[in-house]
C-alpha cells in the first residue's frame, strides 16, 4: 500500500531510532513509503498560537504535497497527527480559509483541493493494513511482557478533529496491538494523560513530575515498559526520565519503546536493528524477559 510518509522533525533529530524502526517495519507490513522530504514542520501548535494563518499555510502545503502523490498521509508522531488533523479539518470545512492558503501556496506552485486523509501509523495498522496482516508478520510473540500504552494528547484530543467521534475505538488501538503481539496491556490512568513535554522549556520541574508520575503509576501496576506513538512523549518519558526521578525523589527505571520498535521486535528484528540500544533508559531488563539481548 502506497503512503505519503511524513516522518516529522523529531524522528530526524533527537529520536533517530524512531525513523530507523519505522523504515524497518514498512516492508513486512506491505507499506510503500513515499517520504515527503520537502514538507515543513507542522509548527507543533506553537506557530498556530501566534500566527494561525502561517500555520494554516505551512500545513496546507504539506497536505497539498501528499495530495499530489495520490496517497494518504502517514504520520509517526501523535503531535504531527494532531496538528495536521486540526488544520486539515478546518481547511476541509472552511472554504475561506482554504482559499487563503491556496493564494499563499499558489505562489509556490501548489494547490490543496482538500482531499488528503491524515493517518497515524497506529490507525493505519488497524484500519488499513488490518490486524490480520499484522498478525501474520509476527515471528516472535512478546509473551510475558506487561506493556503500558501511552498515547500522547494530540492523537486523542480534541476528538472532533481526529475523527474520534465517528471512530471511538481509536482510543483502544494500542491495547489491541499489545495483546495481538502476545503481551499483556497494563490498565492505568496515565495512558491518556499529558507527558508534560509542551511545558518542558518553561516549567521544567512541573513538566518532569507529570512525566514521572505517569511512569511510576504504570510501574506500580506491573509494567515492564511503556509504548508510545509519539516521539515528543518519548523525549520526556525516556530522555528526561533520570531527571524526572530526581524531581520526584524516586528511582523510576522503566524503558520507553516507540510503537514501531515494539512491532519490529515481534516481527523478529534484532534490538540493534531497531536502535533499542540508543535509549537513555536501558531496555536491557525488558528485553531479557523475552530472551533478547542488547
Amino acid at each position, binding site marked *: 500500500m502506497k503512503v505519503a510518509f511524513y516522518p516529522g522533525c523529531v524522528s530526524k533529530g533527537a529520536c533517530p531510532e524512531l525513523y530507523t524502526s519505522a523504515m524497518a517495519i514498512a516492508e513486512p507490513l506491505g507499506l510503500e513509503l513515499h517520504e515527503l522530504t520537502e514538507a515543513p514542520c507542522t509548527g507543533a501548535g506553537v506557530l498556530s498560537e501566534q500566527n494561525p494563518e502561517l500555520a494554516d499555510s505551512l500545513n496546507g502545503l504539506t497536505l497539498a504535497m501528499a495530495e499530489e502523490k495520490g496517497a494518504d498521509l502517514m504520520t509517526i508522531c501523535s503531535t504531527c497527527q494532531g496538528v495536521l488533523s486540526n488544520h486539515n479539518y478546518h481547511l476541509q470545512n472552511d472554504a475561506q480559509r482554504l482559499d487563503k492558503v491556496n493564494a499563499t501556496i499558489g505562489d509556490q506552485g501548489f494547490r490543496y483541493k482538500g482531499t488528503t486523509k491524515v493517518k497515524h501509523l497506529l490507525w493505519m495498522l488497524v484500519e488499513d493494513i488490518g490486524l490480520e496482516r499484522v498478525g501474520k508478520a509476527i515471528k516472535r510473540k512478546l509473551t510475558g511482557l506487561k506493556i503500558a500504552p501511552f498515547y500522547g*494528547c494530540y492523537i486523542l484530543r480534541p476528538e472532533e478533529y481526529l475523527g474520534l467521534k465517528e471512530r471511538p475505538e481509536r482510543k483502544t488501538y494500542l491495547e489491541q496491538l499489545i495483546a495481538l503481539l502476545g503481551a499483556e496491556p497494563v490498565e492505568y490512568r496515565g495512558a491518556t494523560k499529558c507527558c508534560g513535554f509542551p511545558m518542558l522549556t518553561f516549567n521544567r520541574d512541573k513538566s518532569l513530575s507529570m512525566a514521572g508520575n505517569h511512569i511510576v503509576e504504570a510501574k506500580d501496576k506491573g509494567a515492564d515498559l511503556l509504548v508510545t506513538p509519539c516521539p515528543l512523549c518519548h523525549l520526556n518519558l525516556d530522555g528526561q526520565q533520570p531527571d524526572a526521578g530526581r524531581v520526584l525523589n524516586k528511582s523510576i527505571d522503566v524503558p520507553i519503546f516507540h510503537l514501531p520498535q515494539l512491532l519490529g521486535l515481534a516481527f523478529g528484528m534484532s534490538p540493534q536493528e531497531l536502535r533499542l540500544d540508543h535509549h537513555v533508559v536501558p531496555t536491557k531488563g525488558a528485553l531479557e524477559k523475552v530472551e533478547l539481548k542488547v
Partner: protein
Amino acid sequence: MVLDALIAIREYQDESLAVRCACRSAICGSCAMWVNGHAHLACKSRLSQFTKEGKTRVEAPPSLPVIRDLVADMAPFWEKHFKVKPWLENKPLPSKPMEEYTVPNAAMEELIQEVICISCGACLMDCESFAINPDFLGPQALAKAYRYVGDPRDAEHRTRLGELSDRNGIWDCTHCYECVQQCPKGVAPLDQILKLRKLAVDAGFTTNPGTRHADAFAESVKHSGRLNELTLLPKSVGFFNVFDQLKTLPSAFNMARAGKLPPIIHKSIPGVKRIKAIFDRVGGRFK
C-alpha cells in the same frame, strides 16, 4: 442519567450519600464529578453510555479536597475565579453621557463562547497542569479572564494581560486539551488561553520563556523548514539564565551518551526557499 441513579441510591438505599445537585438540567453546574475517571456533569451523562460490564465508577475528583462522598470542596476553584477579577472595570465616561454605551455586535459574538460557562469546574477537575501545580490559575479562570480582556468596555485590558503573563498564568498550561474535551458547554477553555497568549505577546509582554520558545521555534522553521532541537531549549530558557540552563545539563549529557543528541550541524529540508517565501508572504510576528 448518572444523577438519577445517585438520587435513587440516596432515596432508597443509603440516605447518608452526599451528592451536590440542583437544576438537574445542565444549567447550574453543581453536579460535576468524576464518572469513569473523567469530569462530567452527572445530570448530563447517560448511565447506559458510562456502564461497562454492569459497573459505573463515580468519585470526587482527586485534584480537589473532598467534603464528603461525591462532594468536592470548590474553594480552590472560586479562589482562582476571583483572582482574575471577573468583572468589568469601566473606562472613564464623559462627564455627561448623552447615550448608553453600545458595544458592536461582532465584539460580543467573539466572547459568546466564554459567556456560556456555567462554572461547574469540570475543566479544572481534569486539568493536568492543575493536578501537579495547585497554584496554576486553571482553565476556567483563564477563559473567564479572556471574556473581560476581550471586552471593548474594559479599562484594564493591558494590566490584565500583564498579570496573566506572570507565573501560574497563561504560560503554565500544558496544552493537553483535557479542558476542551470535558467542558459540557463547549467553552473550549484552551482556545481562550491561546487567544490570551497571542494578545499578551501583541501587547508587548514578551520577556517570558513561552514567547522565547515560540520565537525560537519559528526562527528555526523559517530558516531550515524544520525544528532545531539543539538550539530550541537554550533559546527558550534564555542564554543568560545560567541557573536554569545548568539544570538542563544532566539530561543533555544522558541524551548525548545514548547517541540521541540532534546533529550539531542542523540540515535544512530541500526546497527551504519555499518555506521562507511563505513566512514572508503571510507576515505577522514571525516574518
